[in-house]
């Protein structure tokens, strides 16, 4: 029987929240050897272990969403989820990720050994948390049916650009996220942008404990990271990887030194184009389904919006998407119990 061809999408920050609390215990108690190596590493770094954080009561936004904790927690959950995919029934044709999800994608694709990925993620989470340069703001560009509002993207980008040009304000495009944009900037800039954007549903939304990732404000982090992680051991991936520019890294032709350079270079200070990564995944691999690793399910919206943008799987609206998901889901989120079950052996 031919396997379903799937593209795996790795989640970024902000996906381990109260509902996900206890994720490792719930889903990955069977991976104690792996999680033990993670915890050992954390303890050696004088950080709380991941299983300890996962079990710590009560869930505390202040603790669990800290960069140095959240990043590693999300990685452990997502990587463990990836291991749970039944490869007998599902062929992973490419792996991509959103923002920090890129690091997880590196691990899933085999370009980083699991513990080396933790070292990268933990180090980056710590550097981000220590510097906490700027913040992020999320805004939507689609209507209630997840279709692009004509001209909205240009208007919003122009507005951000205009604010960035004012004194003391710094605002940059941070992430292209399906039907949404994430901006990174300094407090002054983001406050102005937040005030200037017309309220729409939950947006504009400030992202707690996030820094201005993927913007020039991260230059100091980039410099530090390149020094601290100069010895990070990268390899050719086993699976095709798609980065935050939509660049394809092949299992055969990838130069690990270039992969290192991109990972600790471009993507830290330039916008992360998750939308283009997904377009490339769809166009170049034409998967049967998309799988979003847990924890959380929030990335599913962005993926669905992108599918609608591309009228992929004949989806032209949120209603189409909801109907298709009910009948024969094309987007499988491992953070959703029912869909998770479809992927596991």
């Amino acid at each position, binding site marked *: 029987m031919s396997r379903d061809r799937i593209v795996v999408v790795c989640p970024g920050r902000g996906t381990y929240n109260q509902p996900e609390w206890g994720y490792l215990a719930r889903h990955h108690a069977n991976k104690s050897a792996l999680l033990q190596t993670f915890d050992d590493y954390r303890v050696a770094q004088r950080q709380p272990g991941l299983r300890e954080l996962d079990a710590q009561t009560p869930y505390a936004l202040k603790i669990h969403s800290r960069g140095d904790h959240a990043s590693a927690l999300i990685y452990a959950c997502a990587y463990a989820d990836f291991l749970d995919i039944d490869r007998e029934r599902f062929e992973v*044709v490419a792996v991509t990720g959103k923002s920090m999800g890129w690091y997880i994608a590196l691990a899933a694709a085999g370009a980083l050994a699991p513990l080396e990925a933790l070292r990268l993620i933990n180090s980056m989470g710590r550097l981000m948390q220590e510097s906490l340069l700027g913040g992020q703001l999320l805004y939507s560009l689609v209507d209630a049916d997840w279709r692009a509002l004509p001209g909205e993207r240009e208007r919003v980008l122009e507005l951000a650009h205009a604010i960035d040009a004012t004194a003391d304000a710094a605002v940059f495009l941070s992430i292209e996220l399906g039907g949404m944009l994430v901006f990174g900037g300094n407090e002054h800039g983001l406050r102005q942008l937040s005030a200037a954007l017309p309220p729409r549903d939950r947006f504009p939304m400030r992202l707690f404990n996030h820094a201005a990732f993927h913007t020039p404000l991260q230059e100091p982090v980039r410099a530090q990271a390149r020094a601290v992680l100069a010895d990070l051991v990268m390899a050719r991936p086993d699976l095709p990887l798609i980065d935050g520019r*939509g660049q394809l890294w092949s299992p*055969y032709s990838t130069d690990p030194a270039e992969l290192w350079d991109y990972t600790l270079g471009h993507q830290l200070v330039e916008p992360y184009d998750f939308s283009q990564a997904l377009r490339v995944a769809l*166009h170049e*691999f034409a998967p049967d389904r998309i799988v979003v690793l847990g924890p959380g399910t929030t990335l599913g919206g962005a993926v669905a919006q992108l599918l609608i943008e591309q009228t992929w799987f004949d989806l032209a609206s949120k209603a189409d998407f909801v109907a298709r998901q009910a009948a024969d889901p094309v987007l499988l989120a491992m953070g959703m119990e029912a869909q998770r079950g479809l992927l596991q052996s």
Partner: protein
Amino acid sequence: MTSPAVEQNFLAAAQADAFPGPSASLSPAAVGLSPSQLVGLFESQVLSRQLDLHSRRMQARGESFYTIGSAGHEGNAAVAAALRVTDPAFLHYRSGAFFVQRARQLAGSTPTWDLLLSFAASSEDPIAGGRHKVFGSKALTVPPQTSTIASHLPKAVGAAFSLGLSKRLGTTGDWPGDSVVLCSFGDASFNHSTAQGALNTAAWTAYQGTPLPLIFVCEDNGIGISVPTPAGWIAAAASQRPGLHYLAADGLDLLDCYRAATAAVQIARRQKQPVFLHLACVRLLGHAGSDAQQSYLSPRQIAADEARDPLLYSAGLLRAHDILSCMQIRDLYESTGSRVAAAAAVAVRRPKLTTAAQIMRSIVPPPRTLAARGDVDLPIDDGQPKTMARLLNHALDRILMRYPQCFVAGEDVGRKGGVYGVTQRLQSKHGAHRVIDTLLDEQSILGLGIGAAQNGLLPIVEIQFLAYLHNAEDQLRGEAATLPFFSQGQFANPLVVRIAGLGYQKGFGGHFHNDNAIAVLRDIPGLLVACPANGADAVGLLQESLRLAAEEQRVVVVLEPIALYHQKDLRMADDGGWLHADPGPGARIAVGDFAQQGEGQDLAIISYANGYYLSCQAAPQLAADGVGLRLIDLRWLTAIDHDRLYESVKDCRRVLIVDECRRSGSLSEELMANLLERGLPSARLTAADSFIPLGVAATSTLPSVAQILERARSLLADGS
């Protein structure tokens, strides 16, 4: 569907670890390639091959329509690798691996999908939108070419020339100033006169030290459809040209290709000299999907070619240098095939063009912002009436002052100032780089304009005589006019072509200097043709033509009647009746805006150029007959608003069309048909279906004042 022999060969070689060994003793490091880069090139080759194979599978299912492929030419991936994404590449139809490799060099590219959409003729094909299978991409600096006969080579020469010119003009071209232009073609089309003309022009240009960073890539597979190229012909014919560097490489050997390509790029980029890069390739899978090569090649010849598959040699390199295992090579090949198959299954379901309106949407390119400078001190006209030639000269002078991107080029336009003096003193005033004396080759002159226009310059090229256009008209028809169409307006080549033509030259005559055949200009979608009858209109039409090129990216021909260049008089010697005052820099005559003289209701004469001039001469005598006359000068010979024209003449008792071009194929046919379709019969007076003779007989086949009078009177005498 059974897999073709080339696929079976490849998989069998992988199974047996029996790929051919390298033909040269080069190593990846010696040519400057890392192992990863070499694998990357191989991946491009494999993807190109898989696209070719799937194109044929799609065609067998009725899902693809044009299967001419790249199999056997995949060595061109190494040429792409030696260039930058921003180096303009005018590619022929066997450039799949080049295109894929270039796409690898720009993050976010989706070559598999883009090419599959192109095969499937989907309206979502990002370059042609379903209009043709082409290799093209705005982001990858690959203007689409549909040429199968190397007719894209002249524009590549023009594009390369524009790089240096752009710098001298102090303008920022669309391409970086240190770009290298590449064009590719096969060994069969190498023989085409257009290719030979372009090679000659490049050599002629470089021979005199003019910068020309250009690489001609001749991909020599030894056969043109069914006709073999004589062994050694390309090397013998191309390697000894003055001004042209010649480099050769084994197109089956990625390392040798890359070595030669980097050397070629170095010469072109650093020395700014043209290079002929000769790649020995092999043609696999026949000429195209419909070509049964077994009808003209023996099974042994076909098998011998298949054994020379560049993919086998590339895999051999990877094995010889211990870069990939056979299993990895096989996996790479098959996983690429799987993803192409999966993407193809989706691509064939994407939307298609369905209506004429959708198809025609891109005939006219989109507007752009390129306004004339308003801050230059233009010469003050003395207000005296002048000839058309003089007024055109003044208008050109102003245009060169107001558009810094503009240049004039043609035979004898510089030092001599044009054979009729229209460009006199422009070179001394604006410089030899802006008023360029070209060599005698109309294809190259048009190619110069077309190529330079794509780099953001604003060319005015001159064809010295209308008769000389005919050997080169495909440059307008097949190349300039189609570029927006095959790129959905993403690429355009806005330019103005001035052509001196039409009959009635006194005391001269002869076909070549009096040609009155303009049908070739009038049926080209999107092309505009202006044709003045007097100097003031000539200024208005030329200035509007420039604006159309500058702001609307149009290709406009200004057909200038030679016989009226220096005409001063209308009715008698020294009456100065055909001298006109300069209407000034603001004068513009919009497309379709015809001129009307008189409101008479007895007879309307519709004409243009000399025919209009003669009609003006006949007018007083008709008036003396008591005829209420209305004269219409069309001024634009394409995009005629026939409804408006009909409205302008429908209240006249009779309509006479005076057309100085031939009875067959002249504008008169279109005018009569359109008036009749609107219920208004008309008569016509045209030139005979003849060539123009010499001397006193020069006007004998053309309409005359006497004939106009006779025809008008007989029409009016008819009581019906």
